[in-house]
């Protein structure tokens, strides 16, 4: 059901750089799992609504800025940083 090309495409979208062995394992496993899950095709659900968490109106709040007072704690978690800025790899 999932060929290698498809697996590599979804791995790319999911931002996972799979190793060679993992590619083989996942290709086999995911196919088995989807076969098991295809059981849902037995359910007659045409015309049914899509599930939504709660039948409730939107909950709104004031769009106002507040100081969290946590800036330093959050910055301290950055994997790499310089002068209080987060460093990211080049994107272009």
């Amino acid at each position, binding site marked *: 059901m999932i060929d290698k090309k498809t697996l590599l495409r979804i791995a790319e979208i999911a931002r996972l750089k799979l190793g060679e062995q993992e590619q083989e394992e996942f290709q086999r496993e995911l196919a088995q799992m989807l076969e098991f899950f295809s059981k*849902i095709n037995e359910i007659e*659900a045409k015309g049914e609504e899509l599930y939504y968490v709660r039948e409730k109106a939107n909950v709104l709040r004031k769009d106002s800025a507040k100081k969290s007072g946590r800036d330093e704690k959050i910055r301290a978690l950055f*994997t790499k940083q310089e002068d209080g800025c987060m460093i990211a790899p080049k994107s272009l």
Partner: protein
Amino acid sequence: MTIKQFFSHLFEKGVQENLEQKISAIEKREKEIGAFISLDIENARRRAKELEARKKKEGLGRLHGLVVAIKDNLCVQGLRCTSASKMLENYVAPYNAAVVERVLAEDGIIIGKTNMDEFACGSDTAKSAIKVTRNPIDLTRVPGGSSGGSAAAVAAGFCDLAIGSDTGGSIRCPASFCGVVGFKPSYGTVSRYGFSDLAMSFDQIGPFSKNVFGAALLYGVLAGEDYRDSTTAGTEGKEFEKTILEKEEKKLVVGIPKEFEGCDEKVAKPVWLALKKLGEFYEIREVSMPLLNYAIPVYYLNTYAEFSSAMQKYDGLKYGFPWEEGLDLVEAVSEARNASFGKEVKRRILLGTYITTKECRDAWYSKTLRARDLMRKDFQRVFSEVDLIAGPTMPVLPWKIGERMEDPIQMYLADIMTVPANLAGIPAGSVNCGFSEKLPVGIQFMANWGDDEKILRAMKKVEEFGK
């Protein structure tokens, strides 16, 4: 019955002595059980001293200095919050989760953070990237999961109460396996602010305790509206430990789905026995819910989609697994993610990504959303006839550590009894109803959305005639 009877040690010996009792249990057995990822003994002692002093002057809040353990996917300011993943091994929470704020506001003492399956993906805590947790009742067996550390900590007497999260049974499964009480409240009654989500439309935070009283007490403290989690709008926490003691207005009706018949006989026996005794108080009748046969595929497909999306925030840049120099953005993020996530996490991300691609969305994702809505409606149909649905919490006894690791489908089938409640967003709880081969067996009750008290009451009945 009052809190003084259920937590007598605390009231006889005081807050500090009660904490010391837990610490000495931890010193004795934590090495072999492995319930905690982080312990915070020093702060707990400081706080116990402060509460003891305050008790004499002005009295304490509803938790009276009870010792509470917190699952490691909930933020406790200043402590690591790993979700049992290498990705977050060094993440130190910069703030408190809403449930942690509430525990502290009612004078609970936080003792530490408990082990779990990585990002809550599992039913035995064996998928933790940090450590192994063993079942305190039988050290060769798993404690259940994903909140296995929380259940084990309560069972071993390392704390009075614990908090876990339940996306498809992650509170009820370990409660059943460790012989304690675990409760998953109605969806949207406990704020998830400060919680590392698995699947947003399923996740619910809830309590563990050795007795129903403690679970009801803690649930009442945790529940209620919080503007930071809009699903809680309009809800309120009550003193459930008191309201469930009030006289019942009518005889409750308990339905047993005939689809639950396929359980292991060793599990089924104590459960049917408990239901027979319960029949002296409640009316018991059989119901039929054929859609339950599809619960596993519908549950997993839905949660894969939400999980793959929830995991996108872990890129190794803002925090987490360090990225390598010399790579471009996509390569660096993809390598960091692949190197730090465990196999089950990757499996779920890949499947979730697949079923939500443009080509697969209609055949897979939309179909599961429609099927989920059908299941919710089916529960509503049954709850127009009965107050509660009962059956075993788990279809099998706790398995040996190392078993059920390789075949994901076998692994998922253990969740057959617990996932339906999360699919429908309804409350469910597990309480011990006996032992089989010296291993604990839990009975599960489900009720309609908002009928959490009916479950707590039924669990209390089982607890009472078990004595």
